[in-house]
């Protein structure tokens, strides 16, 4: 069984700061990590490999530094890694990203058929959750999103059963390979990198694919990068600070009960709807 896992390198958002004057993101010194949601996808792929045997290939489209994310994935136990990197990809939105990733996966298939593609639920920077569905449509793979559990795979019969999180419940879905699965977070935990895998990751060559090696012809230049992106950012701005400061409740006695009574009295007068809502509970 051959599983391709798509991962993205993202800035560790917990450490991102916004420049107070220019409103630009200060990326300097912010460490790059594997998108946390993608680790659930990678772990799920590795578990299936443990169970059924096969190969796990990780791919990412990004700048040359993204090689670090791939090496990390190798140290967890992925077999092969491909970095899809080319200036022509710069400025891609999700439509253009899914085109490039799908082309690369088609190239991978020329060497070894792909049974499943795994992605994370979403990234923590772009955060759209659109790349998975996009890649599936372009490859004409069955799309299974928000999968919380791969219940069973019968590689011989090309059959798969998964649990999919839906609104208000879980759908048990039966489908066929090849398929693309977006994995829901929280249902597994990334294994530790083993010593042998760490050594292997350090030595293993990460394949570098440019536009041509990803199978994208000159004719398709309009489908990648900036040119292939219908969405355009027209404005970036900080949320309006200081809309309407709070009315501070102060009472002479400083007694908590007096404070509480005062705030209730004020609120019931100004917000009859709140008073009504509370009266409903009487």
């Amino acid at each position, binding site marked *: 069984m051959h599983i391709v896992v798509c991962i993205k390198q993202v800035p560790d958002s917990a450490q*991102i*700061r*916004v420049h107070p004057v220019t409103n630009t993101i200060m990326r300097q010194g912010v460490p790059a990590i594997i998108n946390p949601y993608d680790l659930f996808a990678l772990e799920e792929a590795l578990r299936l490999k443990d169970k059924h045997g096969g190969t796990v290939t990780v791919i990412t489209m990004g700048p040359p530094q993204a090689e670090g994310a791939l090496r990390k994935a190798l140290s967890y136990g992925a077999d092969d890694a491909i970095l899809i990197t080319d200036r022509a990809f710069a*400025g891609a939105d*999700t*439509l253009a990203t899914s085109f490039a990733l799908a082309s690369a996966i088609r190239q991978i298939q020329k060497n070894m058929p792909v049974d499943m593609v795994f992605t994370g639920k979403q990234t*923590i*920077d*772009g*955060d*759209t*959750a*659109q790349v998975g*569905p*996009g890649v599936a*449509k372009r490859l004409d793979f*069955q*799309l299974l*999103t*928000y999968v919380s559990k791969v219940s069973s795979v019968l590689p011989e019969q090309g059959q798969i059963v998964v649990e999919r999180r839906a*609104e*208000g*419940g*879980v*759908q048990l*879905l*039966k489908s*066929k390979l090849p398929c693309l699965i977006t994995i829901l977070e929280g249902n597994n935990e990334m294994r530790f990198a083993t010593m042998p895998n760490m050594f292997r990751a350090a030595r293993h060559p990460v394949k570098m694919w440019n536009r041509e090696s990803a199978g994208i012809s000159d004719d398709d230049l309009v489908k990648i990068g*900036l040119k292939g*992106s*219908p*969405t*355009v950012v*027209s404005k*970036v*701005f*900080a*949320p309006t600070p*200081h809309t*309407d*400061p*709070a*009315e*501070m*409740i*102060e009472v002479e006695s400083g007694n*908590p*009960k007096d*404070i*509480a009574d005062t*705030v209730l009295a*004020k*609120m019931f007068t100004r*917000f009859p*709807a*709140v008073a009504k*809502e*509370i*009266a409903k509970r*009487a």
Partner: protein
Amino acid sequence: MSEAPAKKGKKKFELDPRLASYKGVWVFVEHERGQVHPVSWELMGEGRKLADMLGVELAGVVMGAPGDETRQFCDEAFRHGADLCYLMQDDILKDYRNEPFTKGLTDMVNAYEPEILLLGATTQGRDLAGSVATTLKTGLTADCTGLTIDPDNRSLAATRPTFGGSLLCTIVTLNYRPQMATVRPRVMAMPERDGSRTGRIVEHALGMIEQSIITKVLEFIPDANQDKPQLAFADIIVAGGKGMKRPENFQLIWDLAKVLGAEVGASRPVVQAGWVDLERQVGQSGKTVRPKLYIAAGISGAIQHRVGMSDSDCIIAINNDPNAPIFDFATYGIVGNAMTILPALTESFRQALATARKAG
């Protein structure tokens, strides 16, 4: 993604004439197990405003198995502001599945050419929107918090938070149609329902056979929602933050919530510390809420928390730091120790309720 050309020397935008026939605003009416997701009506309210700005019609799109239910959903769509509904009925559409819904919605878009298509940012909406946008080769802006029409070029200007809410960006899809966007539940206000409104229905056939569809639904296992918090739809929320100091103190939050019949919410550090479960996190990476009353104790009011709750009608904030950012946008501010203020509030509410009970 690019930044649009600088403001200066802005040249007049000309829409590709082939796209000029795309007219009207559509809202996808999402339903599961006989229930329309409230986000669809929230979007209907927003869609009404956009359609009025553009001077075009607002349509609901209802897809499902044949029967009274889908027709009722159309009627509800009219009452929430739609002028017409596109209705696709087929037994194949009984449960949500990507393949037939993508084909059905894509076909209808190609047949009737709307300029704007809105969906909820739910598991169903995001699954469908991503597939439809890719099939149509158009732009899709995800998880928007604001939608308006850019007067310069009549295009949809969709605003969404980025980098955990610390910045907002406005995204446009200039020369592609339809312009697509998803919006999270509870971000937009629920419009008034007008029981007298009606509209017309346009039926469209799916044209697929079950045998051609690969993925099958074996079973739907409904959530046992007895103990699942329904934070997003709560009218009163009592939320606690890291300022509650210890998990034992968090009991004060539960006590007040119990008296008020309220849901309990929390900031992220509280969830990360394991004091309450993830379902209760309010904010950018948690739930968006808009209750009538939000009581925040020991919460600093960081932007990632604020984006999830600032649309509450009334916010009471308790914090011992007079400079806490939450006082910049709360309705009432109490500077003090949450451990003493919370029990006092609980007592005052208990008395208010007793008075209300006596008054009948």
